[in-house]
């Protein structure tokens, strides 16, 4: 037996779990997960992104993956795609950098110039 307040809580939690299936995301984080990306730790990087976003309760950012870009020497490569802004590509990303990208770029909207490989 649940009260109306319980139902509200369940509803909110379920909404969060299912947000992936909606397409109204402010920012898309695309992680290069080709063979070399994975070899250089892209999987760890992606987990860091997912955890950071979950910890900060950010639900309008989508984390997804893609194949190799052709920047093997810069792997793991991460694209930050935001509508109406140039796509920022970060290279040689690791867990530490991923955390900074979330706090500085995703949250505060400030591009971290030192990690940028290209912007277009």
């Amino acid at each position, binding site marked *: *037996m*649940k*009260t*109306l307040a319980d*139902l509200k809580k*369940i*509803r909110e*939690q*379920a*909404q969060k*779990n*299912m947000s*992936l*299936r909606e*397409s109204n*995301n402010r920012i898309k984080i695309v*992680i*290069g*997960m*080709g*063979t070399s990306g*994975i070899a250089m730790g892209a999987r760890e990087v*992606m*987990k860091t992104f*997912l*955890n950071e*976003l*979950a910890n900060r309760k950010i639900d309008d950012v*989508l*984390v*997804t*993956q*893609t*194949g190799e870009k052709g920047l093997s020497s810069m792997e793991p490569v991460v694209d930050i795609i935001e509508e109406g802004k140039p796509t920022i590509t970060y290279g040689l990303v690791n867990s530490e950098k991923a955390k900074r990208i979330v706090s500085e770029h995703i949250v505060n909207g400030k591009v971290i110039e030192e990690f940028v490989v290209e912007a277009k």
Partner: protein
Amino acid sequence: MYRNHILFSIDDSSLKAGVKDVENIFKSELAKLNLLDEVNVLETGTLGFFGKGVCAKVYPENVIYANIKPADIPELISEHFLKGRILKRLVLQSKNTSQIDLNYSKRIVLEHSGIIDPENIDEYLGVGGYEAWEKALTSMSQDAIIKEVKDSGLRGRGGAGFPTGLKWSFTAPLKAPQKYFVINADEGEPGTYKDRLIMEGDPHKLLEGIMISSYAIGATKAYIYVRGEYKLSIERLNKAIKQAKEYGLIGKNIFDSGFDLEIGIKVGAGAYVCGEETALIESLEGNRGNPRVKPPFPGVEGVWQKPTVVNNVETIANIPSIIKNGAKWYSEFGTDEVNGTKVYTIMGDVEVPGLCEVDMGTTLREIIDNYGGGMKEGKKFKAALVGGAAGVFLPEKLLDAKMDYNSLKEYSAVLGSGAILVMDESADIVEMLGSILKFFKHESCGKCSPCPRGNEILNKIIKKIIAGKGKEEDLDTMINVAEAMAKTSLCALGQSPIMPIKTAINNFREEFLAKNKSKK
């Protein structure tokens, strides 16, 4: 937190194709690669098409894979889930369109089918489920609910198209120690399976509709009469009822409102006539499924002689959205005269047989081209049998007729079942009518005389025509007999043969006559 959700479509067609095996192999492959905490494997209702084997939808990319075989899984996982590349060779495609339009933005009753896990009440809550039930129970009077439904213009989706709010308003004011609300899920019309898809894809939506409707008419007991062949629907409805009980959405004194409600399931035994509401009530009581003489109508004397409202699954699946968003919102769907959407099941000679939910008034041509993927192998359209056995043959000239109650006029009863059987130029209309009449003869229950006797005569004549021994006046005899049946039979079964007979003979008369010549 998961980065991918993969939803396997679980329906009768995918179960036959071995979806459970594929799903298990998929999970064990994921486990090997340590991906189980990144990829969420779920089950959902139908994705909207059939005959494509095991299908799954992957989010966030929103890709649909079809015909997935166990042997494809390692490649699928390594390409899509490890490397993030879409495995193009498995992506659902049709010849005419690169992507099949599933029309989600315009769906009401099937809006969540293929998106949520139907066996998980939390997911239904997550998409705003049971908000309408809360709203109805805590802030609306019974009259207000009935008024909202009346204003929405919702009409019954079972066949006759009777205004739902009006039907309720006959029963709601009656004083009785017990009233019943019954869902007719005995979907027996050949080729119709829209109700099955609703129950399999989003059972909680139907339950929410039942809760609101029962409350509106003051019924504290509700039954879902579901046909016995619908194993998956029954299983999912049972689960959904159990979950709703656990959450206190049904039971005693719901949300301290003082309103009690029980929902039960009655499994049918396969008689076509039990889709007729009075026969359904007889069967529900445990008797032989024979229709009753009306009046009294079920609204006054139904189950165990108590006031009873019987509504179709699709009708009631519209209720939560109407209560939540209001009648005005609902009236934006459909045409100026007829509101709402309609679920159709498309079969026969089309590229992608499946389902679609579209605005009322969408033309047959649009349905075939946009949602059925066009005619199979580019063949020419000849006719569509719309509405199952008790349906009508629509010829090419009616391809652009709007499919709503007003435009189809005397044919409008066929809208209910929503079955569209598309036939190309190679189809034989006479044989088709022959098998329909055989079906009616078989299913006639024998309670009144015109129906079994009339069907006997009709069968004799059509057999004669098929054998090439018919005369032109036989066609008129068939129409006369069927018309007499329509006027004198007790229920819709005997009243139905006139529809396929008249439309087949009127639109394809020369084919009936040609049978004669070809066999001579």
